[in-house]
C-alpha cells in the first residue's frame, strides 16, 4: 500500500462528509455510474466526519475505517459545519496532508474565501443537473485520484 512518487496503485479511499441523504445517494450513484473503482465511506454530518478522521469510537478500527486518500466535504451541515471540519483537519499534524475538496451548493464569495483560508485544496460547486454532477465526479477521479501524486503514505498513517 505504499506509493513511490506515483499516483495511487490501488482503489482509493474517499470520505464523503455530507448530511443530505439525497446528495449522498446522488454522489454514490455518480461514482457508480462512472464505474470508478473507489471505496467511498460516508459520514453523515460534521461530527461524524471528525469522529471518522480522528478515530473516535468504532472508527479506531482502521481496517474497517481506513484514513481516506481524499475528502469530499459539504459546507452547510447542522451543528458542526464544513468550515469547522476543515479547520480541524488542517490543524492536525497528520490529517492536514489529506487533500480536501469542498463540494458545495454555495457560490458565495464568503464561503470560498473561508474555505481557502482554512486550507481547502479545491472548491467545487455542485451542478444542479445530474449530467453535470457526473462530469464533476469524473474530473475529481481523473485529477485527484489518477493524475495527482499523493503525499508519502506514512504521513497519513501515523495516527
Amino acid at each position, binding site marked *: 500500500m505504499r506509493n513511490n512518487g506515483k499516483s495511487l496503485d490501488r482503489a482509493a479511499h474517499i470520505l464523503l462528509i455530507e448530511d443530505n441523504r*439525497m446528495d449522498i445517494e446522488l454522489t454514490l450513484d455518480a461514482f457508480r455510474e462512472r464505474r470508478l473503482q473507489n471505496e467511498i465511506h460516508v459520514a453523515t454530518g460534521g461530527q461524524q466526519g471528525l469522529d471518522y478522521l480522528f478515530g473516535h469510537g468504532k472508527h479506531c478500527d482502521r481496517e474497517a475505517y481506513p484514513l481516506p486518500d481524499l475528502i469530499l466535504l459539504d459546507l452547510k451541515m447542522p451543528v458542526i459545519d464544513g468550515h469547522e471540519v476543515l479547520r480541524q483537519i488542517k490543524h492536525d499534524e497528520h490529517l492536514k496532508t489529506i487533500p480536501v475538496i469542498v463540494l458545495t*451548493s454555495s457560490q458565495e464569495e464568503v464561503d470560498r474565501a473561508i474555505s481557502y483560508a482554512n486550507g481547502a485544496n479545491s472548491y467545487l460547486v455542485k451542478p*444542479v443537473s445530474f*449530467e453535470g454532477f457526473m462530469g464533476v465526479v469524473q474530473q475529481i477521479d481523473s485529477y485527484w485520484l489518477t493524475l495527482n501524486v499523493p503525499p508519502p503514505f506514512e504521513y497519513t498513517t501515523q495516527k
Partner: protein
Amino acid sequence: MSVAGKNRLEPGLVVSAVGTILVAAIWAGRDVTSNGTRESAYLWIVWLVACAMIAIALLSFRRFSRQESRVRVVEESEAGLRQLADAMPQLVWTARPDGTRDYLNQRWIQYAGIAPAQGDTPDWKRAVYPADIGAYEQAWRSALETGEAFDAEYRILRARDNSYRWHLMRAEPIRDAKGQITRWVGASTDIEDQKSAEYLLNSLNLELKEDVRDRIRQLEAFSYSVSHDLRAPLRAISGFAEILVKRHGTSLNPQGRHYLENIVDASRHMGALIDDLLDYSRLGHKAITLKPVDLHAVFSDVMLSFESKAAESGADIQVSDTLPVASGDHTLLTQIFTNLLDNALKYRRRNVAPIIRISCTSAESSVIVSVSDNGIGIAERNFERIFKVFDRLHSDDEFPGTGIGLAVVRRAIDLIGGTISVESQVGIGSTFHVRLAIRATDAGCDLPQLALAVSAERANP
C-alpha cells in the same frame, strides 16, 4: 478710560495768563510813561507781543476744548456701547490687547451668576466647563499671537438652572488707524439647542446606518439560504429524474418518458432562475469601488466563454480593438457584456447566422460601447419592458430564458454609474448602447493609485 494730560498745566493757558497780565500792566502804566518816543516805541512792541500771546492763547484754548469734547464723545460712545452690549442677548466681552478681559456685559454676568467684586472684572472662567478651558485658551493664545479673529465652542454654566450649555464664541480684534490692536471684542451665543438637535440627528443617523447594515446582513443571509437550500432539493429532483430517464426509461411508455423529461427541463429552468435571481439580488447590496477597467481585458474574458457557443451557431463576432479604459468594476462589466452578448446570440433570426459587432465611440468624458446584432429585433413599445425582472417577450419554447438577464444588466450599469439604451428594428437587429464614464473621477469617485489599479486589473482579471 482716562484721558492723558487732563490734569497737566495747559501751556496755552499759561501764555494767555501772562499776556493778560502784560496788557493790564501796560494799560495801568500808560499815563505814567506816555512821554518820550523811546518809551512809546517800547510800548508798541510790548502791545504787539501781548496781542500775539492772547491770539496764541485763544487758539490753544480752542484746541484744548476741542480735545476735551472728543474725550467726552469717546466716553459717551463707550457708555452707549456698553448700554447696547448690556441690552444684547449674547454674552459680550472686551479684552485688552494682552488678552485680559476688562469688561463683561450684564447678560454675561447674569447668565453665569458671577457678580464682580467691587470694580473688578468678574472671574468669568469660573463659569466655563473645566474640560473646555484648555482648548479655548490655546485658541485664544494663538489668536493673540496672530491677531486674527477666532471662533471657539465651550460650555458655560447657566446660573438659572445650574446647567452647562454650549456656546459658540467669536472674537474680533479692533485696530487703530496704524493697524495696532487696541482691543478685542467677543460675543458668544447659546447653541445648546442646536447642539442637542445635532446630537440627536447624529445618533439617529447612526441608528439608521446600523439598521441598514442589519438589513444587508439579513439579505445576505437570505441569498445564502436561497443559494444553498433551494438548490439542494432541486438537485435531487433533477438528478433522480435524469437517472430515471436514463436507466428506467425503457420500462416507461412514451408518455411517461415525456413527463419525466418535462421534470428534467423544468428543474433545469428553475436552476437557471435561482442562479439569475441570486445574481440580481446580490447586485442590490453589492458595495462597489469604481476602478479604471480595461475594456479589452473585459472582452477577452467575455469572448473566452463564448468561443464554443459562437462556433456552434456559426456566429461572426467582432470586437473593436480600440476599446478604452473605463470607470467600473471588472466583474460587473464582464457580467454586463456577457449578458448582452448572450442575448445577441440567442435572439437570432431563424436560418440567419448571427453577426455581432462590438464597437465604441467616445463622447465627452464618457465612452459608449455598442453591442449590435442582426437578430429578431425589438418593437419600440417594448424598449422599457425588456429591462424588467421576469418580463419576457417570448415563450420559453421560442427562446428559453429567465427574464432576468437585462434586469441584471441595467442594475449592474446603474451601480457603476453608467446608462444603457437600445435601438432596434424588428426583423433587422438590435443595438444596445452602454455609456460609461472614462475616468472614475468623472463618476464622482475617489481614485487613489490609478495606474496601479489598472495594472492589477490586468494582472488579475
